[in-house]
């Protein structure tokens, strides 16, 4: 992590440097907003979640470990966790994603996930590590990789996934876990 300006801003925020925190917000809030819109799909809730997330970032910046990854990845993990907590706490249908969270044009989100995964590859192809990780996703069967991506990127629950793929919940879980084990074996090789 020799050149990670976001990571450095996070470390400065950990020392209660308010200017660093303001810069951190300016640099990262559009990305975190994108994460929250994708998972929560509700503008009012996104604004509330943004506020709570950055309050948490200020309070917990000291927990960021540069040796474990990029600053932006840490922030996205905080944002995803918060969004998922909100999503699963929703009373309607036990935290299923609302239809409003789906694509406005009615496109199957998983198709778009496949598109955006191509973008992932383009942007990070220079990094050997990224190439290897993408290869591991490519080793998975298509629908299994799509399920992992759909869950991660869109915040789909096991219930969402089992409905989408038309399989019982426990089958879905076994099936996704097998995919995760394959991913782990490939990435840790």
């Amino acid at each position: 992590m020799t050149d990670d300006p976001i990571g450095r801003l996070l470390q400065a925020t950990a020392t209660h440097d308010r200017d660093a925190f303001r810069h951190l917000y300016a640099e990262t809030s559009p990305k975190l907003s994108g994460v929250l819109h994708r998972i929560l799909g509700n503008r009012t809730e996104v604004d509330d979640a943004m506020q709570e997330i950055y309050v948490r970032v200020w309070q917990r910046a000291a927990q960021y470990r540069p040796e474990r990854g990029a600053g932006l990845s840490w922030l996205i993990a905080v944002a995803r966790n918060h969004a998922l907590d909100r999503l699963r706490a929703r009373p309607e249908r036990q935290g299923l994603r609302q239809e409003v969270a789906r694509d406005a044009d009615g496109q199957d989100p998983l198709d778009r996930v496949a598109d955006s995964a191509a973008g992932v590859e383009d942007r990070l192809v220079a990094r050997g590590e990224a190439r290897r990780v993408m290869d591991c996703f490519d080793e998975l069967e298509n629908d299994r990789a799509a399920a992992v991506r759909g869950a991660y990127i869109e915040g789909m629950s096991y219930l969402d996934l089992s409905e989408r793929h038309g399989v019982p919940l426990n089958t879905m879980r076994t099936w996704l876990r097998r995919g995760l084990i394959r991913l782990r074996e490939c990435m840790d090789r």
Partner: protein
Amino acid sequence: MSETIHPDDWPQDDRDDMLAAEYVLGVLPGDERQAAKDRAELDGAFAERIAAWEGRLAILNAAYKDGPVSPETYPRIEADLFPNPVPEPGSPAAAPSARSIWRLWFGGALTAALVALVVTFWPAVQPPLVAHLQGDALAFDASFRAGILEVAQSGPEAEVGHDYELWAIGSDGVPRSLGLLRGDRVEIPTELDEGITLAVSLEPEGGAPDGAPTGPVLMAGPLAYD
């Protein structure tokens, strides 16, 4: 490939790792998600599994595009975090400059909004959770409020080549490191609840190497409301 194995039939080690992966993916229903989260707070090994999966799946973050940011959000965050007009010690210069910039941008409307927000978001004054850890010559006073644990030390520093390390132990009995205790006073951002036990052990310099205490436990006591 299509046969179903009940999750309880998986080997324990795989089960833990799959649970960590499922937590990171976000597929768990609310109650299981909360249980995994609670466990990560107290079980360092499980938290490590979560961190490893966050690293493995971080590449998917590139699929997120930028979203719109409301201009009202940042002033709300500042009003939430820094409701007190007196600058915090340690950042006397930063606070006024940040405030003045936002005041320029948003003028009187912001001032009015801030007043309303400070009233709305001013945290209810809650008593801190405290623990008094008393040894023979050494004592630690711990006080937890609003995500920050303050630990004041009285007595000798750890002998050369050693450090005092602070641990939180929840109902599962697995110690989770809260970090090293060096100097008169440390602040640790963390989440703690009533009934969690704090313990201090003597460790090699830099702390226990494997995330679990190795040295003698010098003292321990439960967190309780003052």
